[in-house]
C-alpha cells in the first residue's frame, strides 16, 4: 500500500475544535463532518486508493477560502483541494488528518467577453459548460479531456488537462490566460488577466499543472476560440500497429496537424465495436481515426492528402465520413473505449505515458511481452498525434494478487516509456499513482529544484502533501547552499 504522510496526532485529537472553527468561516452545510457524508469524498477516479478525510469544507467565495487556508496554516493542518474528483492519478486523494477543500460551489460563469476572446469563470464550472456558455457566439473552449462533462476547470488547471484536440490546440496551460488563487498563507494573488503575456515571472505557467500543491484557484480566465466551420473524420485500418504509427509520422511529416488523431489496437477495437457498433474493421490490428477540421475547402483537401498517405502505408481500410452523423459514429467507439473495455473485464487500470512516436511499434511489442510475464491483458487506446499512450491493463480485483500484478505491470510500462525517451504522464498527472516513479525520470537535484519551488509557495508543505514527490524535504534544508562534504561541485574540473 502506498505510504502517505504520517497523520498528525495533535491535529486528529483537536478534530472537534477544528470542525467548530471551520463552521465559523463556512456556515450552513459547507462543513461536512459526519462519517457517512465524509465517506463520499474518500477517493477520486483512481478508486484503488481510499481515505476518509478528517473533514470536508465546501467554501462559496474567495473570502471563505482565505479564512480556511489562513486557519489551516496557523494550526498546521493539511489541505487537499478537490474539483469534481475525476483525477485518474489520485490527485484529490484525502488525508486522514487533512481538510478536504471541495471547490464545487464555485460554479458561476462570471463574464463572457467575446471581443477579448475570453471567458472568466469560477473553478467549479465544468469544462463542457464553458463551451456551452460561449457557443451562441460561435466560440468554444478547446481542451477536451474525456471527462469534460464532469471535470471542472479548476481541476483542469491543477492537472494541466489535455484531450483529443491538444496536438493542434494545446493543453490547458496554453488556453488559460489568467487566474486568481489563494496561497496557503491566505494571500489572494492574480496572475495574468484578459491581456496577453502576463509580465514578470510566468507563475501562471507554473501554477497550471501543479496538482494542488501551490495554491487554491478561485477564478480562471480562459481563451476561447471560434468553432471550426466543419470537420470530417477518416477511419483507417492497418494490418500492424507499426504501419499505423508510420502513417501518423508521415501525416505530420507532410505538414498536416489533424484536429485529432487516435490509434486503437485489436483488443480495444473489438471491445468498442461490440459495445457501440461503429462499423470498425474487425480484421485490422490497428485502427487510426484522423479528424481534419477547418473550412470545407481545407478539410476536403486534407482528407484527400491523408487518404493517399494511408494507402501508401498499406492501409487495408480507408473510409472518410460523408455526414456529420457518420463522423460522430466514427468517434463513438473511441470515446466509449474505456467503458467498452470495462465490459470485457471487471476492472482495469488506465495508464498514461508519452513516448516519441517513432517508438510506438517497439513499445507495443514490449507490452505484449509484459502481458505474458504478468499474465494480464492490455487494450491500447492512444492519442497518436502526440504519442500519448493509454494502455488499459485488465484485471479482476476479486482475484487475490491481481491488482498488485496490474500495478507492477503499469509501473513497468511507465519505466519503458521513460527508457525510450518519453515521460511518466502525458495528461493525467503524477498524483499518488506515479509519485514513487518520479526518480525514474528525474534525479535528486531535479526533484530538489522542483520542491524548492514548492517551498516558495508553501514552505510548511500543508497543501496536498504526499502527492507528486516521493519524499518531502524540509524547506530549510533545501534552502541551504549545499557545499557537499566541504567541496564545491565538480572539484576535479579545471577552473578558468
Amino acid at each position: 500500500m502506498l505510504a502517505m504522510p504520517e497523520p498528525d496526532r495533535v491535529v486528529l485529537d483537536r478534530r472537534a475544535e477544528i470542525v467548530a472553527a471551520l463552521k465559523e468561516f463556512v456556515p450552513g452545510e459547507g462543513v461536512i463532518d459526519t462519517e457517512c457524508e465524509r465517506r463520499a469524498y474518500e477517493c477520486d477516479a483512481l478508486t484503488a486508493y481510499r481515505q476518509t478525510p478528517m473533514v470536508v469544507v465546501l467554501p462559496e467565495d474567495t473570502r471563505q477560502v482565505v479564512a480556511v487556508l489562513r486557519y489551516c496554516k496557523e494550526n498546521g493542518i493539511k489541505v487537499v483541494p478537490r474539483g469534481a474528483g475525476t483525477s485518474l492519478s489520485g490527485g484529490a486523494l484525502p488525508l486522514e488528518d487533512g481538510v478536504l477543500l471541495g471547490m464545487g460551489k464555485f460554479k458561476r460563469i462570471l463574464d463572457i467577453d467575446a471581443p477579448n476572446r475570453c471567458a472568466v469563470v469560477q473553478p467549479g464550472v465544468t469544462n463542457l459548460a464553458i463551451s456551452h456558455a460561449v457557443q451562441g457566439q460561435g466560440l468554444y473552449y478547446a481542451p477536451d479531456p474525456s471527462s469534460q462533462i464532469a471535470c471542472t476547470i479548476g481541476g483542469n488547471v491543477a492537472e494541466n488537462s489535455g484531450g483529443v484536440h491538444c496536438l493542434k490546440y494545446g493543453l490547458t496551460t496554453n488556453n488559460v490566460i489568467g487566474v486568481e488563487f489563494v496561497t496557503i498563507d491566505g494571500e489572494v494573488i492574480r496572475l495574468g488577466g484578459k491581456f496577453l503575456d502576463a509580465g514578470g515571472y510566468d507563475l501562471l505557467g507554473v501554477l497550471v499543472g501543479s496538482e494542488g500543491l501551490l495554491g487554491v484557484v478561485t477564478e480562471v480566465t480562459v481563451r476561447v476560440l471560434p468553432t471550426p466551420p466543419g470537420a470530417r473524420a477518416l477511419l483507417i485500418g492497418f494490418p500492424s500497429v507499426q504501419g499505423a504509427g508510420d502513417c501518423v509520422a508521415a501525416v505530420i511529416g507532410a505538414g498536416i496537424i489533424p484536429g485529432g488523431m487516435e490509434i486503437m489496437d485489436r483488443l480495444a477495437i473489438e471491445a468498442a465495436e461490440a459495445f457501440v457498433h461503429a462499423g470498425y474493421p474487425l480484421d485490422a490490428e490497428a485502427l487510426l481515426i484522423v479528424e481534419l477540421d477547418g473550412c470545407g475547402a481545407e478539410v476536403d483537401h486534407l482528407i484527400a492528402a491523408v487518404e493517399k498517405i494511408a494507402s501508401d502505408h498499406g492501409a487495408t481500410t480507408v473510409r472518410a465520413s460523408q455526414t456529420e452523423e457518420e463522423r460522430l459514429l466514427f468517434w463513438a467507439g473511441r470515446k466509449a473505449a474505456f467503458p467498452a473495455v470495462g465490459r470485457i473485464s471487471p476492472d482495469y487500470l488506465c495508464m498514461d505515458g508519452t513516448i516519441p512516436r517513432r517508438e510506438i511499434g517497439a513499445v507495443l511489442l514490449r507490452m505484449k511481452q509484459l502481458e505474458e510475464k504478468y499474465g494480464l491483458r492490455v487494450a491500447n487506446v492512444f492519442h497518436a498525434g502526440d504519442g500519448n499512450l493509454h494502455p488499459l491493463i485488465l484485471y479482476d480485483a476479486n482475484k487475490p494478487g491481481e491488482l498488485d500484478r496490474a500495478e507492477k505491470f503499469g509501473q513497468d510500462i511507465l519505466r519503458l516509456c521513460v527508457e525510450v525517451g518519453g515521460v511518466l504522464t502525458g495528461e493525467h498527472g503524477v498524483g499518488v499513482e506515479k509519485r514513487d516513479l518520479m526518480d525514474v525520470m528525474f534525479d535528486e537535484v531535479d526533484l530538489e529544484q522542483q520542491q524548492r519551488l514548492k517551498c516558495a509557495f508553501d514552505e510548511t508543505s500543508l497543501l496536498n502533501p504526499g502527492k507528486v514527490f516521493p519524499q518531502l524535504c524540509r524547506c530549510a534544508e533545501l534552502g541551504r547552499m549545499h557545499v557537499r562534504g566541504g567541496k564545491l561541485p565538480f572539484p576535479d574540473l579545471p577552473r578558468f
Partner: protein
Amino acid sequence: MTLHRPSSAQEVAVIVAAAAAEKRTLEIFAGASKRGFGRPVRADAKLDLSKLAGIVNYEAPELVLTARPATPLAELEHVLREKGQMLAFAPPKWLSLLGIEGTPTLGGALACNLSGPRRVRAGAARDFILGFSAVNGRGEIFKAGGKVVKNVTGFDLSKLMVGSFGTLSILTEVTLKVMPRPESECTLLLQGLTDAKAIDVMARALNTPHEILSAAHLPEGAARRSCVGVGPVTALRLEGPAPSVASRAAEVEKVFGAAARLDAEASARFWDEVAEVRALLPEGVVWRLCPTPSFSARLVETIRQILPGAEAFYDWAGGLVWLSLPEAGSDAGAGFVRAALQDGHATLMVAPDSLRETVDVFQPVPRALAALEARVKQNLDPLGLFNPGRMRKGF
C-alpha cells in the same frame, strides 16, 4: 572584468559554483543582441554562452527540436525551413528597434519570451518550450520537462524559465515543439479605418471561423512608414493550404468588404516589418503595452491627449500596442502611460540606460505577488548571482 566562455554545462556549473563561493555576480549573454532590453545589469563578471551553440537533436516527424541556447535563430530557422517547419511563435529579432549589433539566439528569444505577430493565434514562446537543462544559482545542473510534445510530469519549470531574463538559471539546453510551415499565406488590407473601428473589426475577424492568424492596425503615420505606403491600414493574415486560403480570404471579404491583397511574399515582408517595429517613429522612447485588447484604441487616445506627438500601432488585434513618445520627460512617461493602461502591463523597451535604471522597465506588481516572485528567485538563485537588477531593483 573577468569574461567566462564555457563550452559545456559542466563548465558553467564550475563557474557558477566559484562565483557563489566568492559571491561574484554574473552578467549572462550569448549573442548580446538583447542587452538593451530590461534594466542595465551591473555585474562583477561576464558569462558569455556563445560556445553553447548548435542543434542537439531534431526529428521533424516528432515535432521536437533540442538545441543549445546560443544557437543563432537564423540557423535554427534555416534548418527548420529545410524540413518545411518553423517556430510557430516566430520570435522577432529587434536589432534595429534596440539599435544593437549582435546575433539573436534561441536562448535570448526564450529568456525574453519573444513572440511575433503569429502570437495572437499560435501562442507565445512560453507555449512551445517542452523541457530544458540548466545550472541554478547553486552551481547545480538540473533538468525539467521532457522531450516529447505532451508531458505533465512534475512542475512546469520550463515556463518559468521563459521570460525570466536569465535571472533564475542559466539554460544549457532546451527542447521545443516545432510546427509545420503553412503551404501558403496572404494578407488582406482594409483601408481607412479609425483606430477604434479597426480594433472592433480585428476582434470580429478573429472570432469568425476563417482562422485569421495575425491582425494588426497601422494608423496613418505608421502605415506611411511601412511597405504599404498609405494608411491607415488594417491587416488580416491567413495561412494554410492554398485552396483553403483562397476560400477563406473570399469569405472574409464578404464580411468586411473588398480589400487589397498581399501575396505570400509581400505578406511575409509586411509582417516582418510589424514584428520588427519598423513603422514606428525612429526617435524618443518606445513602450510596449499589453492591454486588454478591446481597450487599446482608448488607451492610445488617452495618451495622445496628454502627449499629442505620441505615435502608436497595434498588433495582436490590439493585444499589443507599440508606442513612441517623442518628449516623455524624466520618467519616460511611465506615470501617465501606466495610469492610462488600467489592466495589463507596460514595458519600457527603448530608452537610454540612465532612464532604464531609474524607471521601472517592467510593470510593477502588487505586494503579495512581488514577495512571491522574490521567494521564487531566492529558491533558484539564492545569492542573486544572475543578471542582478535586470528585471527589478534587487533582481
